[in-house]
């Protein structure tokens, strides 16, 4: 079964031809960086490019495309360095691996065929890392190996013969230490030399006779693709290998039939024919490793490693979950409460900025658009930055240190129960603070279906934006009430709301995974990498990257919707509101200057300028939003809501907490009150329906809270889902099904409550 091995191509003494190297110096080189996850690829990429890198998506897919500029030598044109996704192999059908293969064969738009491929190889884990190197050799592209973690090798009592490894592989091997920036110049030199030689590599092992026959036959036939016509033997062989043994079949019919026939012929000889190249590669790798790796001290390697010692606690039956709980608590606490300080600052800053602009410009529509639409919108985008930065600080820290894989290991059994992956745990946890960074964090889940299922349920986790709504409802109707003598009813209700979100999320995940996102439970084959001290540069880079992506992609959508919503509550201009006279606008200024925009201070705005507040209330009631509120009243009446609440629901589509400020405007309390403001609480308690009965009752309040738990009233979440899934399909589906669920649940709550005699 095992293949007949040929000795690998020897590395010739480098004889760089002057012409070739001059040609290389003149143009920009394209270098692709490939390597196993956790091999130190990101660290090397960051060390080589510094902060000169950009992130985008590959066309049509959500795989991230990272690219940077690498100064090989100061006097030469810097190279384009393309960071491929972390991979174990080029064969399987995952999108990441497909993309990597397309880059390596020059099939991605606007990325030229790489001149040199740099394979990042973890020296402590040589055998598994060499598997990808083998496949890279087979593609025939010029290759350089960057050997990382040499210091760890030493500590583990392993010695790697670099010269021997280079000879065995037939390519240059350069040990690097990214953090200390050692080996960077040597690596650049090796890349330049390899590029100027342009000597193709190739397969260095052979399969059984029958398999080789099939391979040669397939390689000899031209494909339909014109691009492939001029391919050399190594490339042809590599393509035939891929077609014969990889998961996906070639697209054109004749070729597919040829491949299927070849497979059938091989299968008659041995059922596990497909394992042959895998075994042949590992067979070859083991021989290379045997000649290259030496255990310098047998006694030392018997000692448990630091990682094993740490894991005795971190994945311990009792301590493991306890530590995970603590870690989650710290993250939760940070995004939930420590982020509120910078968030309030941003909020107040944009409030002040808006008022400053308003004070300087002539009052009118344009000023309103600028202040209430644009400035408020930009503020509404930036206000998420502290949470995103903090969450990704933690995520990068946990990923880089190796803890994230342990969290998935601990949680996998539970997550599997609803058909999700262990890796879904962290994104869902973070969604309790805010679904936006949570959804962005689902990137660690490889399988697209599992990733989308996780995104779809993330908004059910009660985020911090729901708290102002819960707080207002509880302050108005349940404050000071106790049950069983000591348990506050308010606390009990808030807890029930969190639980409701979790239970619905579990049920929905289960349903999604058994219907539209039907897929077998994702297999878990997850490396538990050794613990490492995280590199600050990697963490900073991750935070910068995430913040930038959010601003660029989600930010524009949020800004657009916020201007749209402004227009909805501004137009048509109410006839009762002539252009504000000088005295009126002075009244506005007086109101602003009393400092009512500072949150947490409950200066009743009514004291400042009652007519102005009434005017704004009148304006909103007359606006499109107001009309829409009346329009939807028949639909929301069964939930216990009247049209004024309808306006709040429409406005809160922008962001949930907007309900509070919208209700304030509608009830003539003034926009700048918060959820704890006594005047707003009174207004809510005293609001009447046309027939004189109270608009709000405790039951209406509960129904409203249930609606807020389940409805996806957050345009930022939708914008992020749009960005992460690269289409409007999923965000629209999300807002739709969550709205239906929210409606049904509120309906049951209100009507059921009334049947049970509550009011």
């Amino acid at each position, binding site marked *: 079964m095992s293949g007949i091995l040929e000795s690998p191509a020897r590395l010739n003494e480098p004889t760089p031809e002057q012409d070739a190297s001059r040609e290389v110096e003149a143009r920009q080189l394209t270098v692709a960086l490939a390597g196993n996850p956790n091999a130190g690829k990101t660290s090397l990429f960051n060390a080589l490019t510094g902060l000169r890198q950009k992130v985008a998506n590959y066309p049509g897919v959500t795989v991230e495309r990272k690219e940077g500029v690498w100064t090989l030598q100061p006097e030469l044109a810097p190279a384009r360095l393309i960071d491929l996704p972390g991979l174990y192999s080029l064969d399987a059908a995952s999108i990441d691996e497909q993309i990597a293969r397309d880059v390596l064969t020059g099939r991605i738009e606007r990325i030229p065929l790489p001149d040199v491929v740099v394979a990042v190889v973890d020296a402590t884990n040589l055998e598994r890392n060499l598997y990808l190197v083998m496949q890279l050799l087979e593609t025939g592209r010029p290759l350089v190996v960057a050997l990382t973690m040499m210091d760890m090798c030493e500590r583990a009592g392993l010695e790697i013969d670099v010269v021997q490894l280079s000879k065995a592989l037939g390519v240059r091997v350069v040990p690097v230490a990214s953090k200390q920036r050692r080996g960077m110049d040597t690596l650049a030199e090796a890349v330049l030399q390899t590029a100027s030689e342009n000597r193709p590599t190739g397969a260095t092992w052979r399969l059984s006779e029958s398999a080789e026959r099939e391979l040669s036959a397939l390689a000899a036939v031209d494909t339909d693709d014109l691009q492939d016509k001029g391919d050399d033997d190594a490339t042809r062989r590599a393509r035939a290998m891929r077609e014969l043994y990889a998961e996906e079949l070639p697209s054109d019919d004749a070729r597919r039939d040829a491949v299927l026939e070849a497979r059938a012929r091989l299968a008659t000889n041995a059922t596990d024919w*497909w*394992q042959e190249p895998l075994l042949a590669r590992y067979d070859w790798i083991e021989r290379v490793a045997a000649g290259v790796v030496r255990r310098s001290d047998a006694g030392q390697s018997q000692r448990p490693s630091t990682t094993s010692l740490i894991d005795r606690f971190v*994945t311990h*039956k009792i301590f493991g979950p306890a530590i995970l709980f603590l870690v989650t608590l710290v993250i939760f606490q940070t995004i939930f409460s420590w982020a509120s300080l910078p968030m309030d600052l941003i909020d107040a800053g944009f409030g002040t900025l808006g008022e400053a602009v308003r004070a300087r410009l002539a009052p009118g529509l344009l000023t309103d658009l600028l202040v209430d639409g644009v400035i408020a919108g930009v503020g509404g985008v930036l206000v998420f930055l502290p949470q995103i930065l903090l969450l990704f600080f933690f995520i990068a820290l946990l990923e880089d240190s190796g803890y994230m894989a342990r969290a*998935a290991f601990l949680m*996998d059994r539970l997550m599997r129960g609803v058909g999700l992956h262990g890796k879904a745990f962290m994104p869902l946890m973070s969604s309790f603070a805010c679904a936006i960074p949570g959804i962005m964090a689902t990137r660690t889940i490889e399988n697209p279906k599992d990733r989308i299922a996780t995104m779809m349920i993330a908004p059910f986790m009660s985020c911090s934006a729901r708290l102002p709504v819960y707080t207002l409802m509880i302050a108005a109707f349940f404050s000071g009430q106790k049950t069983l003598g000591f348990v506050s009813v308010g606390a009990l209700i808030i807890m029930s709301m969190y639980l409701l979100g979790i239970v619905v999320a579990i049920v929905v995940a289960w349903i999604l995974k058994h219907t539209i996102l039907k897929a077998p439970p994702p297999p878990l*084959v*997850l*490396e538990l990498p050794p613990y490492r001290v995280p590199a600050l540069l990697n963490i900073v880079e991750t935070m910068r990257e995430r913040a930038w992506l959010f601003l660029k992609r989600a930010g524009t959508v949020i800004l657009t919707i916020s201007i749209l919503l402004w227009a909805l509550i501004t137009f048509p201009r109410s006839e009762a509101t002539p252009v504000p006279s000088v005295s009126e606008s002075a009244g506005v200024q007086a109101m602003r200057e009393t400092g009512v925009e500072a949150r947490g201070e409950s200066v009743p705005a009514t004291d400042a300028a009652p007519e102005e507040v009434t005017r704004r209330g009148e304006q909103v009631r007359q606006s499109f939003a107001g009309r829409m509120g009346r329009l939807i009243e028949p639909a929301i009446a069964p939930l216990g809501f009247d049209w004024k609440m309808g306006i709040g629901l429409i406005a809160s589509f922008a962001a949930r907490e907007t309900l509070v400020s919208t209700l304030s405007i509608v009830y003539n309390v003034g926009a700048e009150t918060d959820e704890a403001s006594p005047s707003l609480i009174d207004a809510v308690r005293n609001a009447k329906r046309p027939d004189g009965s109270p608009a709000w009752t405790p039951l209406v309040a509960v129904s409203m809270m249930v609606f807020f738990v389940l409805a996806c009233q957050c345009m930022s979440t939708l914008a992020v889902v749009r960005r992460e899934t690269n289409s409007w399909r999923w965000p629209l589906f999300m807002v739709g099904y969550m709205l239906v669920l929210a409606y049904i649940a509120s309906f049951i709550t209100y009507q059921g409550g009334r049947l049970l005699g509550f009011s």
Partner: protein
Amino acid sequence: MKEFANKEKEAGTTNRRVGTTTLDVLPTGLAARVVAVDGEGAVARRLMEMGVVPGAPVRVIKAAPLGDPLEVRVRGYHLALRRAEAHTIIVIPRES
């Protein structure tokens, strides 16, 4: 020919050779070698790509707190996999 293939498959799910067992029931801490990966498709391929091929040394380090997945040491690194996946890996304990 087909009959032969079926027999092969049957033999794979039980013990292929005297003394072999599957990785999910291998006692924790006991050193073993992979005899075969019994299974097809993406998971079997991924396992083999990651070095779980016949001859590779394996050892179960521990089970997660809820009993599943398992932490396994193979070729000097640590891998988490579910019992269902571990069941497809046939191993033979190494003589001490």
